Each structure stands twice: as structure tokens, then as C-alpha cells.
């Protein structure tokens, strides 16, 4: 089963990378973009035996730094 973990910076945590991307978008001449936040997506291919709890543990202890980031787990249909 494919699982996607989306890691994003918490609200209020400065995102200089997002700001630079925003600036570059404006450089394309496209207007109307209010804000840009950059994050990461980690795709895992896991056995059916991997539990939800284990996925949560992976996210909390490694994939996201809970001081500055949030995560969202998305399971894709096999």
C-alpha cells in the first residue's frame, strides 16, 4: 500500500523558502497569489502489516519535527 505523508511548517513559523518562491512567481508576471508555504511529501510503500499507530510514530519521531511542523497521512488505494 502506498502512503503519503505531507509535512508542512506550522502556522506562524517563518518560511523563507515559501517567500522566495512567492517572489519568483511574481517574477513570472502572474499576480493574485497571496501566500506560498513550502513543505515536503514523503511517499512510503508499506506492507499491510504496518499499523496506523506505527505510521503515527514514524511521523512524530522522525518524518516531522513537531516543534515546527505538522503532518498529514494519506493512504492511497492499492
Amino acid at each position, binding site marked *: 500500500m502506498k502512503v503519503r505523508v505531507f509535512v508542512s511548517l506550522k502556522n506562524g*513559523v*517563518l518560511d*523563507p*523558502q515559501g*517567500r*522566495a518562491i512567492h517572489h519568483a512567481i511574481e517574477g513570472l508576471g502572474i499576480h493574485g497569489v497571496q501566500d506560498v508555504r513550502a513543505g515536503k511529501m514523503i511517499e512510503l510503500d508499506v506492507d499491510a502489516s504496518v499499523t496506523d499507530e506505527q505510521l503515527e510514530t514514524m511521523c512524530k519521531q*522522525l*518524518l516531522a*519535527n513537531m*516543534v*515546527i511542523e505538522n503532518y498529514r497521512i494519506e493512504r492511497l488505494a492499492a
Partner: protein
Amino acid sequence: MSAFRSAVITFPGSNCDRDMAVAVEQICGGEVLRVWHGDAALPDRLDFIALPGGFSYGDYLRSGAMAARSPIMQAVVEAANKGVPVLGVCNGFQVLTESGLLPGALLRNAGMNFVCREVKLTVENNQSLFTAGYSAGQQITIPVAHHDGNYFADAETLDRLESEGRVAFRYAEEVNGSARQIAGVLNAAGNVLGMMPHPERMIEPAQGGSDGRALFESLVRGLVAA
């Protein structure tokens, strides 16, 4: 007291480990042991452990994230919890926050640029094992070289750090967007210090200054006295 016995940990991608080992050897003397990240145990009877700067594991996932979960770090966390002094510089500071030994996190520099220059620091707490050789409020010059040095913690944590005297050093100028200009923090027990600036690169006039020397001298004096 027996000779000072210290360990410098090397992760794949560390690049300040030799500088750190030279500084410790020249100033603290004794025996400096070099320890590899994959080792499961630390040498016994250590007086001091240093986590050097660099780009451990290529900064994959987050700076310091992979190193914090390496086999040797479990031993470092145990030693730190037993009171062994631990200094993390630059990437070493990132490893300390990722491993939970220090609060907060180090974000990408606010200006997006890698900052590599000498900066002015203020010694905020001169009562610690690492800073007793400085005077309170002393201004020192130490180089920084980092991309992710923007210290972040929530307001409550920052207030607690300030009220407990755990801000060891503060930038005396704008460097990377760090919350409250924090450059170095101590753990609650005072035996773990993480800092972005590199004291090991400022230990003799040939390097442009020796303001980093007092940190290592403080450590030796503190342990002799203890």
C-alpha cells in the same frame, strides 16, 4: 584528578570534527578520542563530549535529523542525562535539538542565504560550566557558517529559557533571524550547550582571534573544581 578525557563524534558529513579535536587537545589537554556515528557505545570515563559542525547525512530530511537517530546518539543522550558535559556546535546544535536534549529547532536563515562570517556575540550567562571564563555581558567575536541557524521555539519556551538563565550567548547583531537573537542555549541541568557560532575556530591569534578559547578553558576549570 586523572587526565581530561574527551570524545569528538564524527558523523558522515561532519567537517569540523578535526578542528574541534585540535581545540580540545590544545586547550583541555589529555586524551581526545574520535568516535564514529555507528558505534553503539561511548568510551568509558568521559569528561566531555563534543558534537562538531558539518552537514551530517547531507542534511537529509532536516539538518541534524538523521544524526540524532544514529546509534551513537542514544549513548550521548544517556551520558548527557547522567551529567557528562556535551557541547554541540553548528550542526552539533541542530543534532542536540533534534535529539530532544535541547528545546526548540533551527530553521532556514530568515534571509535565505548561507551566512559565513565573524559575528559579535554577547555572553548572557557566565555562570555555566562552558561560560564561566567570560564576564557577564562581555562582547566576543566568533565566526558562524550556516544555512539553518534561525533559532525557533514557542514564546512560552523562550520565556522559560530567559528566566532560567539558559540563553548562554546572544547575537549582538542581526545574523539569521533567530528568536530573540539567541545564538546558544543550555539545558536545564546546565551540562549541555548548543550554539551556532564556532568557538573552536577562534582559539589563537593566527585564526584572527582567540575569543573561543575561554569556553574550553571554562570547561577544564569547572571539572577540576568539581
